[in-house]
């Protein structure tokens, strides 16, 4: 009989197992954790993070990295809020146009990001890190440090209206997860991400336009960041420079913990979903059982290291830079 407990199977299912173990652990520690109400809370905190993590998943599958999410999210949030208020301040008016506008802004920032990386031949981590700072600075320039309130009830219904106990934004996020899954598994673009991440040279010598794939990847990621920005604004009703704060660590942690390999070619959007849930279950669970915030960061950091150790066949890598 064949053993199903191979290393490969273990690595593949490890994130799901970790998630289940975590949920059981917190449920045992504190029964209140295991309630629909609390799950809804986890869903609300996960939704924006999931969008951003999905965006960066594509980039990481390509074997690149994108660190611009905080800046991009801030710019998108602020641009959306300004446009929304200027055009009427309620979704019932023409102000709904601010939603697609935010996506366009996100795509544009992503495209610029990609152009800096591809055309100026700057490593993606450096190009995107720099672009992230530019974005944060630009958002601050626009707001002058002010918070912009978005109080339209219709827009806030993302959070306030619930269906089966979960707010609308959770369903919106799941909808975009399905879109991301479709892109990953059913489109040439998605396949190209895997090809570039799995063997860039080969993709090139199979006639793929690798640079174009990269540009489209960063643009797509930018659009997902914009969706994340919209959900983040919908959650607290405020757009400001700080809207993007913390998304870099959370999203990259989620992608890695979910089992997507940092050197590209392996993983996908479902891994990212699991990763986002793990991170948010830890955050939520620690609050529920009453541990201080700094412990959470420490635990997440350790989790990242364990995830990388598990997902790497380190025998095949002689030197690590």
């Amino acid at each position, binding site marked *: 009989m064949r053993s199903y407990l191979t290393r490969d199977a273990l690595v593949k299912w490890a994130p799901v197992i970790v998630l289940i173990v975590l949920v059981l652990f917190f449920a045992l520690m504190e029964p209140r954790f295991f309630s629909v109400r609390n799950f809804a809370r986890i869903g609300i905190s996960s939704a924006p993070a999931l969008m951003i993590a999905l965006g960066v998943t594509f980039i990481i599958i390509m074997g690149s990295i994108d660190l611009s999410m905080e800046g991009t999210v801030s710019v998108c949030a602020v641009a959306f809020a300004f446009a929304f208020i200027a055009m009427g301040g309620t979704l019932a008016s023409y102000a709904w146009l601010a939603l697609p506008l935010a996506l366009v802004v996100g795509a544009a920032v992503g495209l610029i990001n990609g152009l800096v990386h591809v055309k100026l031949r700057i490593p993606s981590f450096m190009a995107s890190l720099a672009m992230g700072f530019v974005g944060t600075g630009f958002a601050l320039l626009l707001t002058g440090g002010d918070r912009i309130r978005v109080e339209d009830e219709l827009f806030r219904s993302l959070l306030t209206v619930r269906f089966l106990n979960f707010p609308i934004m959770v369903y919106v996020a799941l909808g975009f997860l399905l879109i991301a899954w479709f892109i990953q*598994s*059913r*489109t*040439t*673009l998605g*396949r*190209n991400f*895997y*090809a570039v*991440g*799995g*063997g860039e*040279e*080969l*993709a*090139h*010598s*199979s*006639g*793929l*336009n690798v640079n174009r794939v990269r540009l489209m990847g960063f643009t797509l990621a930018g659009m997902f960041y914009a969706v994340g920005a919209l959900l983040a604004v919908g959650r607290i009703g405020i757009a400001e420079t700080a809207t993007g704060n913390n998304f870099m660590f959370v999203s990259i942690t989620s992608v890695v913990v979910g089992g997507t390999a940092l050197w590209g*070619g*392996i993983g996908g959007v479902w891994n990212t979903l699991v990763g986002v849930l793990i991170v948010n279950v830890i955050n939520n669970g620690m609050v529920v059982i009453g541990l201080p915030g700094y412990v959470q960061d420490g635990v997440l950091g350790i989790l990242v290291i364990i995830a990388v150790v598990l997902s790497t066949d380190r025998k095949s890598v002689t030197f690590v830079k």
Partner: protein
Amino acid sequence: MYELRKVEKKFPGVHALKTVDFKIGRGEIVGLVGENGAGKSTLMKVIFGAYQPDDGAITIDGKTVRFQNPRQAMEHGIGMVFQEQSLITNLTVMENIFLGYEQQFVKMGVINWKAMASAARMQLQKVKLDIDPATVTSKLSFAQRQLVELAKVLTLEERIDGDLVILLDEPTSVLSKEEVELLFKLVRELRSRASFIFVSHRLDEVIDLSDRIYVMKDGAVVDVVETDNADVDAIQHKMVGREVNKEYYREQRQKPYQADKTLVKADGLGVPPRYSGLSFELHPGEVLCLVGTEGSGREAILRTIFGLETPTAGTLAIKGEQIRRFSAQAGVAHGVGYVPRERKIEGIVGGLNVYENMTLSQMGNYSRSGVLRIGEEKKLARDWISKLAIKTPSEHKDCGGLSGGNQQKVVLAKWRSGGSDIMLLDHPTRGLDIGAKEDVYEMIRDMSEAGVGIVLVADTLEEAIGLSHTIIVLKDGEVQKRFDCTPGSKPSLYDLVHYMI
């Protein structure tokens, strides 16, 4: 003084060294020649300790020694000057020379750079290289780097008692004529300090420099020639002398090609310094073989036809159309398929499964406005899996887990299913076992029959002769000779070798 007795080395499936005896005396220069795959590099690796022999003995001055690694060999006076230079280019010359042996200059944890510089200068004098030891290595010319490498090996002189044996692996392959002469003069002068083992493809140079020449073939030393009565022709015969098996290469299936149609036409094509002045025509059903030693420009030619290199001279027309913009996309669009040498790097994408790899170059045919039609992809994959008898549990299997031969078949299927009728094959049988090789030969004949034009860089000369309709022999990027290889009047190995080196 240094001697190998009845040394054996086996790898899975290959008997790399067969009872090799090898001897070198004090101050001697010994040549080592053989075709690719004859066992030269295995022998060298045994000598400098990178491989341990399975059987037999290594003795120095009659004492048996055993090296676990190159460092132990160095401690017994055996040094290696690498063909692929082993200097770290962003370090200075002196840092390179004493890499791993800095301890002698360290006092209380701090390196005394002045002492290291003067010690390095002394080493550089041995090879008559007058440069500042603090120069960053990347600033040096190739020839200078080679000398630094030699100087680095010569530091062994101070470090160990006893004699030095220095291996020179293809030291002249990238040097100009003057530089070669300088190097040879130097090596002759250094005989007082060390013995040398000189490995080269260039027989005239080997005869010029060495006292004795070991000729290897199929893992065995077939002859030891004293240079006084050596001649190039005789050695060449000993290097290759083998019978070609017609059956093996499916020669009975070799049909005349369609000479009235032209798929690829190159006229004075050149990418200096790799190759230049190349003219040829490729016809449907023709197997055109590029023959030459490593670095004769074969790979660059394939890359140019595919579009990965832009020629600076001459013209290239594919199916009557002049190529102006050279890119891989244009190559694929013209129906050119490229099977590169390193399958792992450029052949298949690990992590993608069989059908994903097969449609990688032609996703446009299997998608509408960017959305893939995966059902059709799988059907295509199943078709080709049965057509080429690819051994895989299903089309969903990750290609990285297939055997080399089956990976090769997936790559061929990728191009053939996409309708490529110009195939560029670079060492398609490298690393395959015999059965898988025969499968590849069969596929090549099938493709010829289907009217595909094939440009082939074969793994061995026999393979080139056996498979091809036409052979172009290259040396240092220049066409030396063109052979017509109609069955019955194929050139012999010796004919080819004669023009190669």
